[in-house]
């Protein structure tokens, strides 16, 4: 993040005013994905062994990332591609814009890519007078709507078909019925010409195979093949964490990815791209450029606990299963990546000053840990980051509000001091007596009103110690 300080992410403020249509749309879609996922997982006898293998191989790759990245660079270069290294988002944008200017592109077509969302590439294109066209249906929709993605694999998951139809009518001036087939046909017709006109296609990649320098792009709509083969120039922007050692490793991850994401055995299209076309007789682009993006990943790598964040293969399953995500949607998380993985990734990438609310956006229920195909210990990393925020660590000084830190010290003092704890337990029921009715408290002063504004609180009862004393009276003391 060169230059500008990242904007503070207001999860709490957003969560107080979630548009009511969002949880409905999100829960419908994620429920469907989880249902099919469960069926696919049940078919696999070795699912747990696969998860373990995937976790091991991702950790191994991260531990030797330098080796595999160098091998990747050699192999991509040997296949006729060109590799660029980008330390941060600005460098990555500069590389891509440089390539676009070099080939004289006025328009570019894009496959859904979280890495280009991460670096804000579309905005940079527009600033440079180049028009980017998203070609994945979901990305096309959110580009029309002018928002970021609200889910890492289904970017427009927050919208219902009626809302999409209204958006098409408004932005495209066409008569769009609230019918998915008709809406897809409208988008397809609009996009077809873009594919043919664009000089440059931009993609991400789900994986990079170091062994052969192969980009692996997984899609369901076929737009990925169009973007990476029709234009003369193909640019891929990919995080350095996406490298896998070899094809054998890749097969393990591919088995897990689609099943975890959409409940498919395999996505409709899995494209393997090794270099540009070798002769004019072949299909495919004349030039292949690979921009490898660090943007803070190597910093995460240095943190032993948090490192496992980078095992992520972006299946989105942790979002689908997360009760918090399903009630707030993706925009609450303030960046392109949301849900549990966003809650641990974003504060590390943008810093805990901007992202301090996110690690607390979890009940630590652990549902995400159960389904993660690469076994990221998400709750453990959430706690690790909460510690960074509350009291600071090697990576960052504390960023929690002073009042919270003072309250924690007071809580420690009263909970760890026996007589004070027992005194509190005796005094509280007396203090709250005027507020309690039928054993319930409907109102409490701030900050405790944060409980009672949502549901009544059972009244303090206490009295166990007195009961115990009476119960054990006459018993020989232990």
């Amino acid at each position: 993040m060169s230059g500008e300080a990242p904007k503070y992410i207001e999860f709490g403020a957003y969560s107080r005013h979630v548009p009511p249509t969002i949880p409905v749309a999100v829960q419908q879609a994620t429920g469907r994905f989880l249902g099919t996922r469960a069926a696919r997982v049940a078919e696999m006898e070795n699912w747990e062994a696969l998860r373990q293998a995937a976790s091991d191989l991702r950790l191994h790759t991260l531990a030797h990332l330098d080796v595999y990245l160098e091998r990747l660079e050699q192999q991509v270069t040997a296949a006729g591609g060109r590799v660029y290294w980008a330390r941060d988002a600005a460098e990555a944008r500069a590389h891509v814009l440089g390539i676009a200017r070099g080939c004289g592109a006025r328009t570019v077509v894009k496959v859904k890519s979280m890495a280009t969302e991460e670096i804000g590439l579309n905005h940079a294109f527009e600033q440079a007078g180049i028009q980017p066209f998203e070609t994945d249906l979901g990305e096309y929709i959110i580009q029309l709507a002018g928002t970021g993605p609200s889910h890492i694999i289904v970017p427009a998951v927050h919208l219902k078909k009626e809302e999409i139809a209204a958006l098409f009518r408004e932005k495209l001036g066409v008569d769009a019925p609230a019918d998915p087939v008709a809406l897809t046909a409208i988008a397809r017709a609009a996009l077809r010409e873009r594919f043919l006109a664009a000089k440059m296609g931009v993609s991400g990649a789900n994986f990079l195979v170091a062994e052969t320098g192969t980009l692996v792009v997984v899609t369901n709509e076929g737009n990925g093949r169009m973007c990476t083969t029709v234009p003369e120039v193909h640019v891929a922007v990919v995080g350095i964490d996406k490298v896998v050692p070899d094809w054998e490793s890749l097969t393990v991850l591919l088995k897990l990815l689609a099943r975890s994401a959409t409940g498919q055995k395999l996505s409709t299209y899995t494209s393997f791209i090794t270099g540009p076309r070798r002769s004019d007789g072949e299909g495919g682009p004349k030039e292949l450029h690979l921009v490898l993006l660090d943007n803070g990943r190597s910093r995460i790598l240095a943190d032993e606990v948090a490192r496992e964040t980078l095992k992520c293969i972006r299946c989105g399953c942790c979002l689908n299963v997360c009760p918090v995500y399903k009630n707030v949607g993706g925009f609450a998380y303030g960046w392109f990546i949301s849900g549990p993985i966003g809650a641990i990734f974003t504060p590390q990438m943008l810093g805990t000053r901007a992202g301090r609310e996110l690690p607390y956006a979890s009940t630590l229920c652990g549902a995400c840990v159960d389904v993660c195909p690469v076994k990221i210990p998400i709750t453990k990393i959430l706690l690790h980051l909460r510690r960074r925020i509350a009291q600071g660590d090697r990576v960052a000084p504390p960023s929690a509000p002073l009042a919270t830190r003072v309250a924690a010290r007071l809580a420690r003092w009263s909970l760890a001091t026996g007589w004070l704890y027992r005194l509190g337990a005796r005094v509280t029921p007396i203090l709250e007596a005027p507020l309690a009715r039928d054993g319930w408290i409907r109102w409490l002063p701030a900050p405790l009103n944060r409980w009672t504004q949502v549901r009544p609180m059972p009244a303090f009862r206490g009295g166990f110690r007195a009961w115990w004393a009476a119960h054990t009276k006459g018993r020989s003391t232990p």
Partner: protein
Amino acid sequence: MQRPVQLFVTCLGEQFYPNVLQQMVAILERLGFTVEFPAAQTCCGQPLYNGGFQDQARGVARGFLHAFGEGDTPIVSPSGSCVDMVRHHFLELFPPGSAEHELARGMAGRTFEFSEYLVRKLGITDVGARFPHQVAYHASCHHLRGLGLATEAKQLLAAVKDIELVPLPEEETCCGFGGVFSVVYPEVSRAMMQAKVRNIIGTGAAAVVACDAGCLMNIAGGLRQAGSQVRAMHLIEVLASQGSAR
């Protein structure tokens, strides 16, 4: 032969559910245990730990370690999340090699959640209770995923006379409590709690049973706000029951 157990009552248990603690003592005594209550105990430090305040949590955990001390008497608690704290997180709070780390290691090995202790350690599923009502079971997160107790509470419920267990849709979905979460993001907590309450009411059960005071406070509050007559009960309340609902 009288076997001793130590009660770990938990701070929420002591302040909000003293009846559950009394019933737990009664059941354990009926099973032939001599129950001890280390009176110096306060809280395990979980709220501070989960808030990220590990240094403060360490201070509270230290008090816990000294309250229960050395020895090999089993420590039994009516809360999955508090046992999860003692078993899995105390060790992280004290540097390996320190006396407190060793004390924590011993405590991790002898601290049990109530249903876990009965079913896994003692092999007991029938405690002689009778509860002639329909009951739905909510799987508390730390009980289920933290301690891996997927069937123990249900086995105990199944052995209760005249009880009818009805399936709760999304039984394993969090109720929205989440400790500090419930007051940091109350609106999200409410949305999750309301979904849980809708599912509970939909079963038509007379009571919903869980094994953690935090979840019960949240769910009971939600049920009350919804004007529902469904009771949120701790497992122990059902196991201590001898006939009527109250």
